[in-house]
């Protein structure tokens, strides 16, 4: 009894804020529910409508394209940055702080900053591009072809957390492996390929899974910066889910979207976990 009393804060929190909302969300996904009226059970209607909805496919494809660009770019940039920050140079801690600082900036503040940087006429990026000779600079967030790449480029701004995790992994690689590789005549590139990457592969796997989940839920920055435009070119899955829930008050439809999103994330994570047997090496294995 006393044990249950000690457990009760967690149990109450778990039931009230996790388990019951999850079960209710699953139930509502089979209902027509606007918050203003009681839910009306509709069976699989929301799921059927979802797969016939052209905007659903549009946001799904947009999100897949964004993830396919932002995820590898973020991982490569973070790993490269971590390798540089792992070098024994003067002012190392200052560089590490500078790289991590953007992660501490609130997303809304970052969005406002980048809105200015990407401004087609006055933005710093286009000013610099024009200064170095580019005449037709992109419209960035107002250009249907450049809005998505702009958001992907911007996503690199927040890689500080990933860099820190990579850095911790890099510092955990045994020095003697590098020494042995050097004695065998391995160049810096070969040491990175044959020692560093295999040794930090669990870290890469971890960041990959977190990255999959994060990029498939991209929301705040495009929500503030583009509102999904121009012409829905940056309209992502979670934004459409949000609009259905809170703008159109279609809670049932939004919940169905949330469950489909969960299944997609689960499938991709399972795929990553299955593939990890081939390329992730744990120490001792």
């Amino acid at each position, binding site marked *: 009894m006393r044990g249950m009393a000690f457990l009760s804060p967690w149990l109450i929190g778990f039931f009230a804020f996790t388990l019951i909302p999850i079960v209710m969300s699953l139930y509502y996904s089979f209902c*027509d529910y606007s918050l203003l*009226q009681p839910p*009306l059970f509709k069976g699989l209607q929301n799921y059927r*409508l979802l797969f016939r909805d*052209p905007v659903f496919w549009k946001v799904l494809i947009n999100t897949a394209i964004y993830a396919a660009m932002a995820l590898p770019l973020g991982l490569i940039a973070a790993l490269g940055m971590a390798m540089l920050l792992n070098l024994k140079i003067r002012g190392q801690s200052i560089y590490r702080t500078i790289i991590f600082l953007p992660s501490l900036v609130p997303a809304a503040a970052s969005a406002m900053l980048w809105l200015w940087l990407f401004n087609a006429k006055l933005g710093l990026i286009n000013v610099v591009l024009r200064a170095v000779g580019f005449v037709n600079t992109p419209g960035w967030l107002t250009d*249907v072809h450049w809005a998505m790449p702009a958001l992907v480029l911007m996503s690199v701004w927040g890689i500080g957390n990933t860099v820190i995790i990579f850095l911790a992994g890099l510092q955990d690689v045994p020095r003697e492996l590098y020494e042995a590789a050097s004695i065998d005549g391995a160049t810096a590139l070969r040491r990175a390929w044959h020692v560093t990457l295999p040794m930090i592969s669990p870290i890469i796997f971890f960041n990959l899974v977190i990255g999959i989940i994060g990029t498939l839920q991209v929301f705040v920055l495009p929500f503030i910066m583009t509102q*999904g*435009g*121009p*012409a*829905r070119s940056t309209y992502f899955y979670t934004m459409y889910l949000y*609009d259905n829930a809170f*703008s*159109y008050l279609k809670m049932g439809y939004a919940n169905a979207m949330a469950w489909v999103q969960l299944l997609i994330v689960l499938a991709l994570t399972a795929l990553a976990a299955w593939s990890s047997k081939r390329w992730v090496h744990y120490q001792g294995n």
Partner: protein
Amino acid sequence: MASTVAMVQQGTFFANMIHHDNPSMDSDWGVAVFPSADPKLNDVTYCNCDVLTIPRGAKHKKEAFEFIAFVNRQDEMEKLANLGCKISPLVKVTDGFLEHHNNPYIRVFDKLAASPNAHPTELVPILPEINDELTSFTQQLILLQVTPEDGLRQVQERLQQKYDRFMEDQRERRSLAF
């Protein structure tokens, strides 16, 4: 105002925005009634207005009512309308109000507001979806991704389906309630 589009669909207040953002355009613009989808109808427009209200539980009801009465005095309303480049919502206007108005095209707007084909924005239960669909369509149109005919037909089809589904759900709810 950025010298990139030839015309926009806007309201009376836009005269002020032109003057504020690009004064060099002050004598270089004009106003015409937007054509109607139904060619038999003339002077079709939406008319909306701001409404002053005294919320329930207000602490200073008397003062609030006095303020509303003050704003609705003909001289004050005309001053406000003139500064905002808008028409007066009152039935009568003083002599010279239209002649000396800050908006040089105020007569076009005044005629539109008095038209039997002027309507308030319809109360539609799926209005946010209509707005979003039309915004997306407008952007596609500007980017030449779709022709007006095709784009409007697609928007019409999608919104009609959503509207029909909403009404069907409401009918089902009513039938269950009885």
